[in-house]
């Protein structure tokens, strides 16, 4: 064996390679993902047309039959349906990631001298942007049918920040599922099976008071309920939880932050290790 030289071959003829930082590489991935959205606006249907449809369906079809004490149903509905949209970012991130893994984009990416987490960070950011577009569309629809943020700018902004924080937390769930599954179709099937009970067994669309007591306990401990309750209180869209409501609903803002941290603490390590494992082969 000869001593190994570590000088690169033919350095003179090559352009300067300055591998980007994690932030720059992630932004490049975001740029690429946003081009996808722009080229295929139909990808946004889930958060645009569907959002408007859901708002109108619930507001006018179900709304008349649902009484909310101390508020009107449309006011009550908007924060709930916005939380649902944020929860669905995890499905969006999972499908996008599986697609990138399946189509070889992740392989191409891995062959470059780039910080590897960038593919996840970029994917997460663009999913948050995707869902935020949905929240904005809903907000506008809401404004048209009478929903308002009634407690001033600071509380208003805080509500949206809580939504984003929660979106960030559930994205880890999406990365985990996206790294484990092989096809976009199976991801879609799995995520929708999880997302629907998660967002419906909660105070998202109806007050929890009318549920059977066992179901009500589950619904009120559902993280989704805490976020929806926090937004309602911050935006003045619903009454403060009664004394018989579960503890998280008595302290919705603190619990929204806590749930987001807990979910991140559980799913981030699972997601990173699943993605690493998938990336080793």
């Amino acid at each position, binding site marked *: 064996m000869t001593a190994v030289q570590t000088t690169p071959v033919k350095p003179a003829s090559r*352009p300067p390679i300055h591998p*980007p930082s994690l932030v*720059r590489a992630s932004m490049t991935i975001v740029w690429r993902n946003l081009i*996808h959205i722009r080229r295929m606006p139909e990808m946004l249907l889930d958060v645009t047309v569907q959002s408007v449809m859901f708002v109108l369906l619930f507001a006018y079809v179900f709304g008349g039959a649902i009484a909310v004490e101390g508020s009107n149903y449309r006011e009550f509905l908007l924060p709930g349906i916005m939380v649902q949209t944020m929860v669905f970012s995890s499905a969006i991130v999972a499908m*996008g990631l599986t697609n990138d893994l399946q189509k070889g984009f992740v392989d191409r990416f*891995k062959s470059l001298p780039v910080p590897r987490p960038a593919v996840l960070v970029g994917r997460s950011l663009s999913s948050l942007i995707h869902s935020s577009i949905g929240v904005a569309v809903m907000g506008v629809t809401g404004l048209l049918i009478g929903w308002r943020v009634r407690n001033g700018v600071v509380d208003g902004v805080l509500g949206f920040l809580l939504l984003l924080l929660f979106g960030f937390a559930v994205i880890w769930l999406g990365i985990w599922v996206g790294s484990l599954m092989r096809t976009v179709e199976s991801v879609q099937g799995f995520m929708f099976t999880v997302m629907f009970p998660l967002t419906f067994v909660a105070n998202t669309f109806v007050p929890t008071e009318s549920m059977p007591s066992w179901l009500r306990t589950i619904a009120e401990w559902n993280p989704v309920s805490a976020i929806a309750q926090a937004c309602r209180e911050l935006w003045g869209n619903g009454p403060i939880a009664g004394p018989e409501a579960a503890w998280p609903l008595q302290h919705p803002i603190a619990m929204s932050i806590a749930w987001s941290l807990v979910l991140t603490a559980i799913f981030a390590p699972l997601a990173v290790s699943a993605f690493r494992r998938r990336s080793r082969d």
Partner: protein
Amino acid sequence: MDVTPAVEAIDLVKHFGTTRAVDGVSFVVPEGSVLGLLGPNGAGKTSLVRMLTTLSVPTSGTGRVAGHDIREQPNEVRRSLGLTGQAATVDEILTGRENLRLIGSLYGLPKKYIREATERLFDRFDLTDAADRMARTYSGGMRRRLDLAVSLLATPPILFLDEPTTGLDPHSRSGLWAVLRELVTEGTTLVLTTQYLEEADHLADEIVVVDKGTVIAAGTPTQLKDRAGKASVVVTLTHAADLDPAADLMRAHSPEVHVEPGSRRLTAQAGGLGDMTRIAAVFEASGIELDDLGLARPSLDDVFLHLTGRRAEAEPAAGAPAGPTTEGATT
């Protein structure tokens, strides 16, 4: 002084569960040469390329690319190589130009360089007219050329190509071969996998034949052909009834004669052209009518048959693969 080889595989092993995809493979690729990794589907070629390009981590063993260890210095390895995967991994939703911009910015190349290199590469690969079209509108050959352009953006000294011409029509294939030969004259080292013996014969300086995760033969194309035996004279008779007398006639002049039962064809081992003309003269004198007579040199296919007892060429795909690729990406 010894020169660092461009690529070295050192007892590479990759297991997936109980499957031994690669089971102890070593080889050396000198700078500026072309190595052909030849083997049937599932031989372990792709796993080898994935390990050497740092996409997958070896179960044991290691490798060096441009002198950098694939386990210890993966980032240096990634700076030194370009990779064109089995499925063209271009982004279908981006235009050709945007694909290069994406990869260029991930390499951290200066914007001006990316722009100039894009023009140069598109010009060379005949993609200039399609530069601003989404890659999903490209034909198979165009996609492969775009993939290659992307791989060459940072002018890597070493290029890995995993089945670069699989699925291409003959015209696109020979076009790609020409491009690859040009790269070699410019000094690029190539490591390519192929199931096509013709391709390895055509491009490679050195061939490593892989089967079931191990190396079963290695050498230059000529050396490998020599191993499969000598040349042979192939005679095709006009009348099948002449088969027996013709075989007797040939046995008088060649130590080994092979008769294909039920056919009009006979094969005899031969030293070269001299033997062929002698056999031709014998038939001329005998009055047995011939349709054809010729000298056959062993092909790499014969080499593979000789080494493994199986044919290497993949069955030609019946029916094209599923139509247009599934609807684009999601964000």
